[in-house]
């Protein structure tokens, strides 16, 4: 694999093709914060906390460090004034949803983000998509997904699938940076028929094999 020389925060870095800025920074001990990035999952680029400034042909540009591939002679700044300002605002926006999330609080300290700058939002989710992508890409179950778009976007368990799969899995729970996903599941659980209920047969005479409407 060919070597690529670039500069990160003034340091000369030798990276190999296919690496992202995040990977390359790690090799020289520069930490870029991430929230939605996960080694095992497809590149996503949702949270933008990993935003860094790069210079492309003399033009400064904001890019997601967790995705942007290293390029020859790229100049990267991971802690410019602009980057820090943006990360602070993004954190404050996310803290409006998940004020008690430990990961967010640690980052808030680093960037001077005010936990209470914005009015609290009813939804805890910061839309990192880890649960959704883990379930789709690793478990291949699609038991949890996003519904709606824009400011109304929320996660949602798909009852038909969740009732069969989640009970014995729950692998996505620890991934959630807000540690509230579990609560969401518990909430949804009241609506989700439990697996053992499935075997008990339904009293109707059709051929539904008792799979629906037996959660009570």
């Amino acid at each position, binding site marked *: 694999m060919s070597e690529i020389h670039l500069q990160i925060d003034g340091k000369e870095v030798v990276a190999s093709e296919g690496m992202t800025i995040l990977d390359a920074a790690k090799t020289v001990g520069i930490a870029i914060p991430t929230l939605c990035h996960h080694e095992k999952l497809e590149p996503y680029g949702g*949270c933008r906390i990993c935003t860094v400034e790069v210079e492309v042909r003399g033009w400064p540009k904001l890019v997601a460090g967790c995705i942007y591939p290293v390029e020859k002679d790229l100049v990267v700044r991971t802690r410019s004034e602009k980057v820090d300002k943006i990360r602070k605002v993004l954190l404050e926006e996310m803290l409006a949803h998940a004020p008690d999330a430990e990961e967010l609080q640690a980052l808030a300290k680093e960037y001077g983000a005010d936990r209470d700058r914005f009015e609290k939002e009813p939804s805890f989710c910061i839309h990192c998509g880890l649960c959704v992508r883990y379930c789709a890409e690793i478990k291949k179950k699609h038991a949890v997904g996003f519904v709606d778009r824009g400011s109304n976007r929320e996660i949602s368990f798909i009852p038909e699938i969740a009732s069969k799969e989640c009970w014995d899995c729950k692998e996505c729970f620890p991934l959630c940076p807000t540690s509230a996903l579990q609560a969401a599941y518990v909430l949804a659980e009241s609506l989700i028929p439990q697996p053992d209920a499935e075997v008990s047969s339904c009293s109707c005479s059709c051929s539904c094999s008792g799979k629906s409407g037996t959660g009570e």
Partner: protein
Amino acid sequence: MTMLSSPEKLECARKDIVSRIDPTKPCISVCAGAGCLASGAAEVIAAFKTELEFHGLTTEVNTKGTGCPGFCERGPIVMIYPEEICYLRVKPEDVAEIVSHTIKEKKLVDRLLYVDPATGEKATRESDIPFYKNQQRNILSENLRIDSKSIDDYLAIGGYSALSKALFQMSPEEVMGEVKKSNLRGRGGGGFPAWRKWEESRNAPDPIKYVIVNADEGDPGAFMDRALIEGNPHSILEGLIIGAYAVGAHEGFIYVRQEYPLAVININLAIRQAGERGLLGKNILGSGFDFTVKVHMGAGAFVCGESSALMTALEGRAGEPRPKYIHTAVKGVWDHPSVLNNVETWANVTQIISKGADWFTQFGTKGSTGTKIFSLVGKITNTGLVEVPMGVTLRDIIEKVGGGIPGGKQFKAVQTGGPSGGCIPEAQLDLPVDFDELTKAGSMMGSGGMIVMDEDTCMVDIARYFLDFLKDESCGKCTPCREGIRQMLKVLTNITTGKGKEGDVELLEELAESTGAALCALGKSAPNPVLSTIRYFREEYEAHIRQKKCPALSCKELIAFHIDPDKCKACGTCFRQCPAEAIDGGKKRIHVIDQEKCTKCGTCFDVCPPRFGAVRKISGEPVPAPIPEEQRAMA
């Protein structure tokens, strides 16, 4: 249907079609675009058919349904050839008179002609109407000349000769070279040079490549792409095939908004007709070049028009932008090189190959060549589609083509570039319309939306309005866009409802800066309406925040209606029409508005006879106390 298996056969077929056309034979063309159909064009066409039959003129007079010439507001539009008489707002009831007067006796039906609101003069021919006269309709004018559903009509005006020229007289490199020389820039948003994408795609080693038409057109109020694809679908198809030949693609997609049923019908029909003639499919015109195309209906949001979202949707997944630091021209649909261009961009390709890059570059500016179609709407006398050479000033578009602001009102700003464009004030009206100039002014060309605003428009409320639209149209994937829009909208709503605080403008600026980190262009450009209005109308923001005053007297929470006791003549008009029964009045009594009951609908303000002008709209000042009961009786 004969297969046209060589360029010679195409020319033969063309000659044959043209020879059957008698240019002196009267022809009645009715615009059958979506706008005119909505105002009754189908009934008008049917009425013409019946009426001609009644007069036994069916064989002597042709009728056809054409594409949209852009003046939809005055539709249904009827053109009578060869005299080129243009009738506006034609109703089925007018048809008998048109046939007996104009067709039979060669006389005009005066009342259906265009009347210049300024001079009162009538215009007989389309080319005499100022709205059209001041345009440069290189692309749109073809819409009028053909029946949108007829490939023969398209062939008659030289259709597919550009394709034939490309395939037989030019190498793919030469086609690319011509497009490069024309400096054609994308008409769908970013203004990216078309040839760059094409070249990148052509040079990508992957042998499977795609070319795609973006006909998603999600900007509210914009309909240039709809008019083109509905009105002249073959011209888009021809451009696409030429592009495919240049980049070496053998498959293409046309991504059309589901909300455009007529566009879907017409493009599908065009594809079928072209296939039957050997202009699409295997061995096009006997050249050995193969190309097929599929129509994909987009059921998505505004954001589905964004290139990576559109390509994800073509793959059958949810149309959501994805990170693309590798250009889609290299890795697009199913990771194959994919060239995506806007409808209008493809229409231009056909003309560039047919007439040459030198012809094309005589229109426009150095950096922005050719013409551009705008959708001119809002507080403007003539609304509709407007095609002008790049480089004309906004003032010319608004005053000469648009006919200025109606109702004697003052111009305030023009918003260009769709929902995430910016607002440009009076002082900048001499700005030439050019990709780079508009961006410098804090707005953008976008796909060509142009909304004119007059003195009654509140600029803070306009920013709020666009962000409210974007709040629902963002996909919600990335934080800066989803949360940034949410927070900016909250601040703007507060300001327009009198809850603005010192520091709000700075907060908006800070939030706007953070959207620079958004994943796609929707988020990155979302703050444009906010930043441009702060830049040019900061004092309006400050008035809302500091004096709780809306200078445009538009924000409901910040205005009040008051009847001036010295001017009220007790005519009772407002009293009778107030829907909230908020006016206390009576015979020979000065009328008084009960502020508690008033819903600020503005009816009293509108209906108070101008000679009295007693109702005032006020903002930023206390409402004068109602005059005491005992002083209300008039002498």
